[in-house]
């Protein structure tokens, strides 16, 4: 399996605060990769650096072998990276269909003249984009509401719309920032099925999530970030039993102060 996205010694500081310190990550092509960690561990910062919203203070990020440093967000998106946001950022005043069609922006190629005269090429491309947008909306189960204004959607449906819109950029790697934050368990099950289906279609998914059950149920590989450093990497079973991860999430018992992991090994 080849590496699709690679973070090498990535650093990010805010003033004196080192949010990320030498983060190394390799996301393989295909499958679902998870990044978990306590609040404030720097997970969203990792996504912001990958998508070009912020620049790293050190280290390198490579997508499919290409260095992303200095690229603007739209250039990175055009290389095949798309993301959703923890706090949903859909275009609320536009219809669902238009939202998804915005994602196809860089895949539509018609000139100013074709646009003005509504040339055959223009109409064919717009038509194809509309059909593809409807198809993507059907993937997330929103095709029946395609012409409604996005603002009217329920919270869970807005997340699904954001997912469809990200897919419209035809990404090779899809970054999901807490895709089930604030959802009830029924909605979580729905989203899980949607993400599984997306991965089955060949999209590589890299997600941040707090919900352990959700992450464990979806991801083949999980990395754990704490205080700006990767403290563990492995499959769900390895992560579940990793003492450092348990410590990061539950804290350490003061009575057993000392090298807790080695104690566990002795037992």
């Amino acid at each position, binding site marked *: 399996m080849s590496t699709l996205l690679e973070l090498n010694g990535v650093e990010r500081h805010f003033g004196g605060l080192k949010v990320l310190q030498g983060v190394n990550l390799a996301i393989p092509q295909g499958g679902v990769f998870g990044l978990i960690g306590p609040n404030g561990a720097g997970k969203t910062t990792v996504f912001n650096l990958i998508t070009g919203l912020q620049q790293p203070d050190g280290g390198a990020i490579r997508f499919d072998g290409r260095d992303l440093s200095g690229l603007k967000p*739209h250039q990175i*998106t055009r290389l095949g990276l798309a993301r959703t946001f923890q706090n949903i950022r859909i*275009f*609320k005043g536009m219809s669902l269909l238009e939202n998804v069609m*915005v994602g*196809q922006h860089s895949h539509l190629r*018609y000139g100013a003249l074709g*646009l003005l005269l509504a040339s055959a090429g223009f109409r064919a491309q*717009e038509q194809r984009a509309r059909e593809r947008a409807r198809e993507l909306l059907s993937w997330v189960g929103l095709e029946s509401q395609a012409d409604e204004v996005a603002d009217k959607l329920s919270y869970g449906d807005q997340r699904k719309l954001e997912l469809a819109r990200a897919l419209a950029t035809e990404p090779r790697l899809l970054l999901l920032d807490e895709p089930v934050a604030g959802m009830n368990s029924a909605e979580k099950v729905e989203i899980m099925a949607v993400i599984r289906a997306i991965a089955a279609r060949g999209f590589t998914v890299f997600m941040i999530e707090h919900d352990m059950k959700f992450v464990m149920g979806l991801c083949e590989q999980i990395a754990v970030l704490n205080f700006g450093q990767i403290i563990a990497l492995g499959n769900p079973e390895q992560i579940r039993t990793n003492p450092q991860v348990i410590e990061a999430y539950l804290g350490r018992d003061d009575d057993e102060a000392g090298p807790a992991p080695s104690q566990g090994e002795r037992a």
Partner: protein
Amino acid sequence: MEAFDNFWAVYSNLVLTLGTNALLALSIYLTLSCGMLAMANAAFMGIGAYAAALLTMNFDAPFTLALAGGMAAPALAAFAIGQPTLRLSGVYLAMATLAFGEVVRIAILNTESVTGGALGLNGIPPSTQWWHVALALALVLFGLWRLNRSRIGRAFEAIKEDDTAAGLMGIDVAGHKLLAFVLGAMIAGLAGALNAHLTFFIGPNEYGFDRGVEILTMAILGGINGLLGPVLGAVTLTLLPELLRSLNDFRLVFNGLILVLIVLFLPQGVWDPVRLRQWFKRKGGQA
């Protein structure tokens, strides 16, 4: 036919002003629809007016060439100042573009040998016919209508809603903002060029702060939900003082009062399809 001739003799200037004001309102609609509060449109109108007038007066250029020059000059200016200023947003962009307008006005005042300075340019041939204005308005409306139905129109709207998310959709945000700014400058310049060949005289103070606010008011009052809004806003703001002429001394009072009422009861502007539909539905329900 005689009645029409009489009407035209009295009101031709008003009707043509309607057309150029509609163009101006559409020029700022373009930047507003891309989420930018750029206040340089009066200056672009002035640059267009002076460029076109100088072309006809000093170089005997044919009218079409003068109009083309009147669009090209502000487009170039917009391209040059757009690069640094469009990084700003909100009131900061408004302030920077207002400052640019002041720079243009003072530059015109101080280049007397070319622009006539404070005395302005006199004796511009009145080449603008009513159909020039009508055709210009029709073409601009058609062009903007096509633009709105394309990926570029969607990109403008996406940038207005959330420019970070728009960038992550693969949209070149800075490029599209610059495009909206330059196209808006071209339309404002066209209005200026047509207007200059209508009024015989142009002076630097016609393109100052007051005009900039008037242009913005027309667009906001009419509504920026669609192309009809700015046109209706221009019509309202141009016709209202004329319709209230019989009120003599109270004219400006009622003019202001009506504008306040429109803003209060139609906050999205005169052209607000959603609200209009609601009103008519309610009336239909009562009947």
